[in-house]
């Protein structure tokens, strides 16, 4: 790997995005769990539920702080490191980011202050509303971010404008209803719920093992296990690969995930194990499970899934059309005014404009795609295959963990239903050890989504290599080092505080006002 500006910019984005997503899933899920716990408190008036809300709220706060801080980096670095991208698609991509701020982040961030500081200043119901606003804000936030990301995977509702040299929106509704975005939203939010459930489950299991705060821990486990079970079923069943057949490159991503080099008759077999070899274009030591792939990828027994080799061949065809579009675009731009554009250039662009992005793949090899040699066209077509081996395994680790979470939450759900949560210490130990796993699964998921989209930054529209800012490699290397140092220090501090807060445990909540506040139902304790 050479450290050119493209590699460095990608590295920085990967580091900052994966780091940011260490905090997002817990925020997403824990905010909803807090809302559930506080609802029980308000409905029953039992103090222990308020104590739970406050305790998990403290952990939520430690996590939330870094999520906010690193989110700002995410928003700013499109402009900083990806300025041609920002120019090229800002007309579409910027809107959901801005709407996220207006509709979701404002709500979340404004009410999170009240969540922590408002216990004595608000009525029970008033505080519950604040908590709901935080939960709604964080989940809406995910919706808009994933609409933006979904558009990168499946750029619907937009067209290239030769006058401004950029993509412009044509159908906002299509961008909102993008099937890839919708699938991603459900999948990602569910993954956040699983993360928070396993977190609450694991921390509570630790308390049970230590014999501390057992009442709080058992109730927390009950909530986490049932919520986590529903969420882990949803995250697997509503996995976002359902959107993978919507476009050519999503198909490529699916084929790469499967290490499926050649098209197979439907329904295709699932390769459960193997070592895909990019050079030889085959998967060594493959273990196949018949039919399963066709079912996962297409939800049908008759739809055919194209293999990598077939998709490369069609990419070559798209590149040739892209060159025609590129040529037409140059003529349109050279003409100066609308009226001066030669008719055949206009027709050629209308017929081939959608493949313009494929011509830009050649920019890696030549300045002017029209002068590309046959060998360069073949090379560019081969570039459309993402790294198969990392995708193959990242996907399998993610899916394997997904099934493990179903098993784990089901187990604790049953234990909770039979009131035997503290009967099997070894299961509690498993739950404690499982705490980091949802994060592993979530990060793997993003690697599949983003690494699988390569070489595109906007699938079929703009290659990643063409999207970077004109910055010096040392400059970007410098900021990478800066971010890594800053993020490492913050991570250590965060973990220290999290562990401390967990070890310290819930504060006893004996505020008499809360008892008076619900005179009808006397607290059970």
């Amino acid at each position, binding site marked *: 790997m050479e450290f050119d500006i493209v590699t460095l910019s990608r590295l920085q984005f990967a580091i900052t995005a994966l780091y940011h997503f260490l905090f997002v899933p817990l925020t997403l899920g824990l905010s909803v769990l807090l809302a559930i716990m506080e609802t029980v408190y308000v409905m029953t008036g039992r103090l222990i539920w308020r104590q739970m809300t406050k305790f998990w709220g403290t952990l939520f706060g430690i996590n939330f702080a870094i999520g906010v801080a690193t989110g700002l980096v995410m928003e700013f670095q499109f402009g900083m490191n990806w*300025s041609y991208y920002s120019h090229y698609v800002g007309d579409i991509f910027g809107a959901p980011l801005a709407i996220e701020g207006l509709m979701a982040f404002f709500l979340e961030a404004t009410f999170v202050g009240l969540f922590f*500081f*408002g216990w004595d200043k608000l009525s029970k119901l008033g505080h519950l509303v604040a908590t709901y606003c935080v939960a709604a804000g964080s989940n809406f936030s995910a919706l808009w971010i994933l609409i933006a990301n979904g558009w990168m995977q499946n750029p619907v509702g937009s067209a290239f404008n030769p006058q401004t040299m950029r993509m412009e929106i044509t159908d906002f509704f299509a961008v909102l209803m993008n099937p890839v975005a919708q699938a991603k939203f459900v999948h990602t939010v569910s993954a956040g719920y699983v993360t928070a459930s396993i977190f609450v489950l694991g921390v509570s299991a630790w308390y049970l093992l230590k014999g501390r705060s057992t009442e709080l821990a058992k109730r927390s486990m009950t909530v986490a296990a049932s919520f986590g079970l529903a969420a882990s079923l949803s995250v697997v069943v509503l996995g976002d690969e359902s959107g993978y057949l919507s476009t050519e490159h999503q198909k490529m991503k699916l084929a790469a995930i499967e290490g499926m080099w050649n098209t197979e008759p439907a329904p295709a077999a699932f390769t459960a194990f193997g070592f895909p070899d990019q050079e030889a274009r085959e998967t060594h030591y493959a273990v196949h499970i018949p039919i399963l792939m066709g079912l996962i990828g297409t939800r049908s027994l008759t739809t055919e899934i194209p293999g990598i080799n077939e998709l490369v061949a069609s990419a070559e065809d798209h590149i040739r059309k892209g060159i025609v579009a590129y040529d037409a675009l140059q003529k349109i731009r050279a003409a100066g005014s609308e009226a001066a554009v030669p008719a055949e250039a206009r027709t050629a662009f209308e017929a081939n404009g959608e493949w313009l992005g494929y011509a830009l793949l050649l920019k890696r090899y030549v300045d002017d795609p029209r002068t590309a040699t046959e060998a360069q066209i073949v090379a560019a077509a081969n570039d459309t295959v993402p790294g198969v081996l990392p995708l193959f395994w990242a996907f399998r680790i993610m899916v394997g963990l997904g099934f493990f979470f179903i098993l784990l939450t089901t187990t604790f759900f049953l234990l909770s239903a039979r009131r035997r949560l503290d009967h099997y210490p070894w299961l509690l130990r498993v739950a404690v050890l499982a705490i980091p796993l949802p994060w592993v699964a979530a990060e793997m998921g993003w690697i599949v989504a983003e690494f699988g989209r390569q070489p595109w930054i906007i699938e079929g529209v703009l290659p990643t290599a063409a999207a970077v800012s004109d910055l010096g490699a040392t400059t970007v290397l410098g900021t990478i080092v800066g971010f890594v140092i800053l993020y490492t220090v913050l991570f250590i501090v965060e973990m220290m505080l999290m562990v401390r807060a967990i070890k310290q445990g819930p504060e006893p909540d004996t505020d008499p006002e809360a008892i008076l506040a619900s005179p009808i139902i006397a607290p059970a304790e």
Partner: protein
Amino acid sequence: MILSELIDYGTLRLIWWVLLGVLLIGFAALDGFDLGVGMLLPFIGRSDVERRVVINTIGPVWEGNQVWLVVGGGAIFAAWPPLYAVSFSGFYLAMFAILAALILRPVGFKYRSKREDPRWRSTWDWALFTGGFVPALIFGVAVGNVLQGVPFRFADDMRIFYEGSFFGLLNPFALLCGLLSVSMLVMHGSAWLALKTDGKVAWRARRYGGIAALLTLVLYAAAGAVLWAYIGGYRITSAIDPAGPSNPLLKTVVTESGAWFANYAAYPWLLIAPVLGILGTLATFFGLRSKAEILPLLTGKIAIFGIISSVGVSMFPFILPSSIDLRSSLTVWDSSSSHLTLFIMLVVTAIFLPIIVAYTSWVYHVLWGKVDEAGVTDKSSHSY
């Protein structure tokens, strides 16, 4: 979509220029006092409890306030993509410094009081100072550079080339603007502390705030004078089509001394912006001295409105002039999003901005009242 034709492209661009100002002024007027409080923290809080009082005045609100910056960034991306692309990549290291400094803030607030160790707390206090000072300074420095023109150009395929350096940003006029920004936000932060605290903390806040207000006045006047005497403005010489395509390369531009004051000559009523900047600052100064409670905070917001909008008005229709390739300069008429995107974003903003203002006001109402030492030391109060 036919609906978007309800408002013509030129008008939408003008509206979005105003909204850009609203968001940036919203950021400076709300998150501005948080930044100011951060800068004042080590000086106004002399003991640990006093520092906790200072921090807890903004503890519940700073997160919401900072969203103005997030939305400001998002709105620039959505409504002015070339501006977003050029300024964020051009000011790359400066943006990194802002981000690094801002990252310190949330963690500083959250983590400072989680441990008793005085060294731990003092470290985070200075981190919070940095988190206030660096962004305040750099935003001002950025404005100072924008007024002089920034060394960028577009290639034919609209690829952006920036030919300046980080240290080039730190020129005397830009530093003057940076200091103006710092003193303006310190003034505003002081007014907030004067309102939200009492006793010695409030007394010190009033004293520092008074000095900052005077400094703001002097630096604002100095910046205006330097701008008038030494720094040329920009003027479009080709015909302007407010509804033309967003392609900056289609126009011609010249530099001219005094061009940044031409709008005031053509429309004298625009002078209300600098006048409000000066009067607002003066009123804040006297308000802080006369022990008025909420007045200095409100007049401070007026001052911020006046000072920031005077920059926008002076440059109009320029948003980001280029010093090395004049026609690459970004103006209101050639660097926006498409007609449809501007329309959709306007609808969304028209719906959500009033809602945001409503619930933000409600939150401030709930949190109304002074923060005192007894409050922050009470264990059940969940203070930072």
